[in-house]
């Protein structure tokens, strides 16, 4: 495909360009590799990923195989990476928000059916040991208690074999070699001379196994214990009894707005979600304000021309930013420990108090803000130092000559001049803290929990950590619900993102105007 397109192009050019041959060969190999991968994924029932590889193959062939899109060659890798690694996961998250994907609905329909039909009840009376004997072109199963020997079997596919009375074979495999054949043995059904069916029931035994479920037709199963017919409910992703009870495991289906209805209608979810949303906004706002205030104060002091040891102060002050956050957060987790953390030891020695930082909701929130201010002020300080330098000194001098106090000069001259260029960065900091998963997960994990909720929800949880815990820390692994809530976060982030975009444009225009 690639080659023919390019040959046609070459003929038109009338100039045979040998230099292009290695490139075309390379593009051909890459394209074929990607196409093979796409085909392979499609065959393994992953058509979505196959389609992505197919799109990538077509893109590579067109952009690198032809000469028309020379410029696009430079942009293609980056754009492809953004589409595959950011856009696709984001869209896929939204898609999952419309499914019932969770630990109960993890599998595809066919897998769920095969899990159910593979379940069986072993009749302990009939359980007996077996041995495997090597035969000319396969194996025979030897049942020493009954003195029965099977027909030769290959043990590489599901099979049935008759047992007949026989003598013990000589060439018996060791138990360990027999265990290695387990998958073949599990797919084997042996029929005794009196018509009973024996199946592999353990590492060393065969027995009569009654299947718990028998597939009657495409969408129904018979439950053998009570002869009830279960029908597949493809709207809910479960097999259901005539009374409507579900039988796990279910499978993944699209449930439309089901998750969103749960979020908005179930009181056990909506209540905590509203309070978590409010706390997320407070947390992000307070974090930005506190880090900005502390950082700016320090920057102003460090800019003072009479101050000595500036560079030493500066390097010490940015240490909290330089140490990897995951380490400092865990350090604080230890320092704030209620029983033997150093902070409570000191508070106890000085004031005789030992606050319960991790079990009291308000204190836990205060702790989160203290730690986040510690982590975040150096970034603001560094930025503020840069912006402060751009404030013309003669404005300040003029104000001072007019008799303004230095505080007045700062609030009327300096601050109004640095806020506009700072704004996009403050908005970005807000967005960052809105999704500050690392801090919450490593410091409090969202705890203490809000009482009386259906799903785990904590008083220090922000929306992102709330969905994280729902999907990965809770045993029911509600991926679908987490995806639905993530969509709500996306909406907020998109709004912030747009706001930032506008603020950045304004800042750029202002700069352009000034220059």
């Amino acid at each position, binding site marked *: 495909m690639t080659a023919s397109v390019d040959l046609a192009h070459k003929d038109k050019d009338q100039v045979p360009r040998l230099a292009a041959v290695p490139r075309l060969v390379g593009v051909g190999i890459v394209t074929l590799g990607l196409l093979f991968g796409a085909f392979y994924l499609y065959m393994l029932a992953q058509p979505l990923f196959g389609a992505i590889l197919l799109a990538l193959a077509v893109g590579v062939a067109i952009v690198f195989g032809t000469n028309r899109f020379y*410029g696009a060659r*430079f942009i293609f890798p980056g754009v492809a990476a953004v589409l595959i690694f950011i856009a696709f996961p984001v869209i896929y998250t939204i898609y*999952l928000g419309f499914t019932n994907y969770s630990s109960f609905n993890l599998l595809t329909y066919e897998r769920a059916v095969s899990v159910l039909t593979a379940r069986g009840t072993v009749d302990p009376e009939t359980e007996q040991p077996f041995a495997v004997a090597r035969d000319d072109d396969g194996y025979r199963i030897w049942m020493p208690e009954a003195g029965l020997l099977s027909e030769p079997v290959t043990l590489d596919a599901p099979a049935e074999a008759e047992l007949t009375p026989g003598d013990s074979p000589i060439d018996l495999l060791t138990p360990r070699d027999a265990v290695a054949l387990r998958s073949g043995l599990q797919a084997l059904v042996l029929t005794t001379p009196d018509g009973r069916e024996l199946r592999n029931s353990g590492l060393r035994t065969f027995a009569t196994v009654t299947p718990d479920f028998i597939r009657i037709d495409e969408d129904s199963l018979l439950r053998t214990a009570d002869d009830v017919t279960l029908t597949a409910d493809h709207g809910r992703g479960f097999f259901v009894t005539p009374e409507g009870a579900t039988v796990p495991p279910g499978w993944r289906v699209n449930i439309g707005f089901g998750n969103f209805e749960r979020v908005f209608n179930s009181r056990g979810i909506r209540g905590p979600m509203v309070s978590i949303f409010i706390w997320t906004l407070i947390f992000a706002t307070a974090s930005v304000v506190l880090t900005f205030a502390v950082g700016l104060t320090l920057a102003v002091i460090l800019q003072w021309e009479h101050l000595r040891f500036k560079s030493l102060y500066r390097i010490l002050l940015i240490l909290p930013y330089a140490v*990897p956050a*995951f380490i400092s957060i865990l350090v604080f987790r230890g320092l704030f420990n209620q029983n033997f953390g150093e902070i409570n030891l000191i508070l106890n020695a000085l004031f005789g108090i030992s606050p319960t930082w991790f079990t009291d909701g308000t204190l836990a929130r205060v702790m989160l803000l203290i730690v986040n201010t510690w982590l975040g002020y150096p970034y603001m300080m560094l930025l503020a130092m840069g912006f402060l330098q751009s404030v013309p000194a003669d404005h300040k001098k003029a104000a001072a000559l007019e008799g303004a106090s230095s505080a007045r000069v700062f609030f009327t001259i300096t601050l109004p001049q640095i806020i506009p260029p700072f704004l996009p960065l403050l908005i970005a900091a807000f967005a960052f803290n809105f999704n500050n998963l690392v801090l919450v997960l490593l410091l409090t994990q969202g705890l203490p929990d809000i009482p009386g909720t259906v799903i785990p929800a904590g008083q220090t949880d922000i929306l992102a950590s709330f969905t994280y815990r729902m999907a990965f820390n809770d045993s029911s692994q509600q991926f679908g619900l987490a995806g639905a809530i993530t969509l709500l976060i996306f909406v907020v982030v998109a709004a912030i993102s747009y706001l930032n975009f506008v603020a950045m444009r304004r800042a750029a225009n202002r700069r352009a105007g000034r220059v």
Partner: protein
Amino acid sequence: MIVERPADLRRKKILAHGFLIIFLVLILFPFLVVVSISFREGNFATGSIWPSNPTLEHWYLALGLNYTRANGTVVTPPYPVLLWMWNSIKIGVIAGVGVLALSTISAYAFSRIRIRGKAVLLDSLFLIQMFPTTLALVAIYAIFDALGAVTPVMGLDSHVALIAIYLSAVTLHIWTIKGYFDSIDTALDKAAAIDGATPWQTFRYIFLPLAVPIMSVVFVLAFIGFVNDYPIASVLIRSEANMTLAVGSRLYLNEFRYLWGNFAAAAILSGLPITVVFLIAQRYLVSGLSDGAVKG
């Protein structure tokens, strides 16, 4: 300059230094305590900043060595810190190189090559970079869970999968490098074009050598970002042997097995190199950050 009275000035100076010193004591207090704890005996021990019975036990364990106590009992390291460190460095370097290659070439294209719809592409790139990959964790888990059924190399608990998803960091770094390329005089590429250089040759022989400083900064930034990542790695990596530092360190402060002393030594050991690298790079980092955000 505005003249101030010497007495006032001295008072102000004392105030400023006093404030800064008190602030620094508060801010640096956690570091001092951690250093002290790493030399204290036991994992719950409390005591003065200067340990009364200093011991190297936690440091031996952090370095993966057995430690024999005075009474003859041998303590074995609780977790493979050095292995985690190696995992972090390996993943950080490979993903860093990948991100660097992708973002440098994209930045060149966005800065210099004339492509239809470039303005739209740039705007959408700016909007999309605000979506952190950590928000798509559920999808990332589902995607790699499904791919793992095809080949374990791209499945859960695989470093390849982690590196692949880390490539999403390109959006952040394209801006930094593009800002740098934008500041290079266009006369340079015009001269190259007159000499018959293709855009690729201009990139390879003119822009790439010029961009070495900014590229090293971006590499360090990307590397630190990957080493510091907790959410993605915690979702994808399962086995202790495959963990990165960020995921593994979490294990030390488990409610049921609280290894405060061992954690302190491991934290210093693993945090120090990254801190030093960061302090060296921070000068460039800040200009890069604010440039990237404002230049657009």
